[in-house]
């Protein structure tokens, strides 16, 4: 089924929240998933796999212990939403180069680095295994890869400044058809954010009038 980008973002945000993210991070998940879909990647499908994998794992175990040297998670594998958000927060530092240790679904770092490029006005490259993604400050995007773009894990990721001429592509073939199973998975996570209906809340919570047949 095909979904609008706004639907993809809203569902992704709710799903991330349902999977345990704080709201601010869930908002990042929504925006990042939307960016992936907008640029032709399998955003919702990747998010569904990531949330399923990390369901129930505490934030502290998925986030970088230290962001001064190589970034590593205490349990061994970084969550790309948390690491990507932190990369973007440190946008000005990325030009000099930041190395991440083992990271899940590294494609999810791309939207954050794309935003960091815009914020810092610097062209950046993100690379792991045989994949290289270049993003410029004006939205340019180039991808070269021989490996699996949707890899579920990689040993290391490097983010550093690059020559803007390397990222002149646009790569804007939206991918708005979403795998039904992945969408259902996100829906199940999102459902955790909805309060069960009670008669009391049905009557009082919305505050409508008693009759609309007037």
């Amino acid at each position, binding site marked *: 089924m095909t979904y609008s980008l706004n639907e993809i973002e809203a569902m992704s945000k709710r799903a991330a929240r349902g999977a345990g993210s704080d709201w601010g991070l869930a908002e990042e998940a929504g925006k990042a998933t939307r960016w992936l879909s907008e640029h032709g990647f399998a955003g919702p499908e990747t998010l569904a796999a990531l949330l399923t994998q990390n369901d129930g794992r505490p934030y502290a175990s998925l*986030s970088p212990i230290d962001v001064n040297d190589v970034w590593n998670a205490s349990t061994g594998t970084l969550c790309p939403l948390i690491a990507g958000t932190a990369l973007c*927060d440190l946008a000005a530092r990325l030009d000099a180069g930041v190395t991440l240790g083992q990271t899940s679904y590294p494609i999810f770092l791309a939207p954050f680095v794309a935003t960091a490029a815009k914020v810092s006005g610097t062209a950046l490259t993100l690379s792991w295994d045989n994949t290289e993604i270049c993003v410029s400050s004006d939205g340019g995007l180039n991808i070269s890869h021989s490996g699996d773009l949707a890899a579920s894990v990689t040993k290391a990721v490097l983010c550093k400044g690059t020559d803007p001429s390397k990222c002149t592509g646009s790569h804007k073939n939206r991918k708005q058809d979403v795998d039904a199973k992945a969408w259902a998975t996100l829906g199940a996570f999102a459902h955790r*954010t909805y309060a069960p209906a009670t008669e009391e809340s049905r009557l009082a*919570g919305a*505050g409508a009038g008693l009759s609309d047949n007037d």
Partner: protein
Amino acid sequence: MEKAENTREKAALRPPSQVMRLSRMGSIHQCRLSFMRILLRRMKRENWTFERPVFEINAKGVGHAVYTATGPQRTYSLVAFAHDLPPEMRSDRVIATAWDATFTLFDGVPTAEDIIRLSRNVPLQEAGRVSSKELSVSRANRSVRLFKHVISSLAAGHQPDAEMIESVGYLMRTTAVYGSGKLGAADREMICGRPEFTAPFQCEMLSVFLTRAFVLDLAEHLAAARSPETAVKMDPALRRRLGIGNSTGLGMAPFLVNHPVLLNNWVAAREEALARVRSVVTASGDEIARFQALLPRAVQNVADWHSEHPIQIEKLAALKADLKLLTTHVTKANLKENAPWNQLYLWAAENLSTEGQELLVSLMMEPYGDLIDELADCMSADETTVFPINGAMSLADLGTLCDDVYGWAKKIDWQSHAAQARAWYVSEEKLEPRLGERFEEPITEYEQPLSPARDAIRMAEDLDTWVRDDTVAAFVLRHPEHRHIVRRLQLSERFPYAEIRDNTIDADVLPIDMLRCKLAFFGATHFDPRSDRWVRINMYRNAPYPEELAMSAEDWSYPTLSEGNA
């Protein structure tokens, strides 16, 4: 930014601490910058044309119709489906599953295949799917008593009772108008580059404008079907008194909190307009005459405004008293010289209720289209550019920002139950937004992030344990629970009217204040709260119908004074 030479040193903008209080947001009125007014101004200026290529509705009122609106570059079509709804299914709430009529605004002119596809989806609303060819999805329910009365009157060959029309004000009320990619419709980003859709909510407003024409046609059609020999059309003066109602619940309140930049841009445009008018040194005879002609029409508009809700009854009484005072005052006041509108505003601030002050703000703008209408171009927002957090900001600066925006919230005793009495949540029943009692219902774990004041205070408490020259990036990495409020605070540095300056989870919070603010920006009138969290309003009351637009006056939102309502 000065528009004319006839301005003194510009009057200061009113501060957010005054403007963004819920009591004031809940007292504002439509103005020249309201979205319905922006839309009709553009369509009139550009000579838009309107047609009704399809009207296939049977004598029971079941079928479909298509209404087209054509501008300089494109045509849009309202596709309307009329249904036979049993009374027991008529509900204005999100949890309803059937309606008297359902609609979509189509981008272009629909083919027969499009109509078939839409007929299988639009009547289902949230349970159906539309495509990127559709720009909005909406539905409406009849005002049962007025609809019946109008049809039986017209069928019998006479005009409906004017008083009854006045007291209800609409034949149908919409209960949701979805845009921006909802249910599979086109994302706003796909159409926001079109000049006709740069201002906010223009496709939704166009959809409602055409819906009003359809509803009147439907009533006249049903009257003619009932009694072809005797039926008459509705008198043009009377039909203009009919708007489209809207029944709205809590969904709109979260919108204002969830779109802080948009809220800022709406309010900032209106405040800039006010400051420009207050800066006018000398008013011309024409400008004074326009203001003075509109004042009694505004009085009439308030006289036409009915509500049974105790809060609104009280506010209306105060507003009526305000208008008496104002009417007397302007007969003596010098409206010509020495920055007359500034003086009038300052007088109002001393002498009128908040409702009265804000009505005057709207009225003062009316003669000054040349000075302020351009501000309509500043009311949309690209929210993506403000999303990233500035991680390099120092915690000292974050603390200062928090004090600037939420200093007032530090005076609240957040340990008291009253300060946190409410929680906003979404029900699993059709995702209806609700407001519950935190200490009486098991809802806290489902709470939506709609209490920025409390969140700011929680953040400030943790901030106190950090070194001040540390960075925001380091803080939010260890405190992801504060990321949401940090983002809000950082953007409010650039967008001063982004944050509501009241506690949105207080035991005494009135969600209708938030609804009123948003609806007034839409251009709605006649706010009629049904409870503290539900309001009915009127849209396009007194507006021209599509075929009348070219000949209409731009101040249509104030009723004309005729024999019937002078």
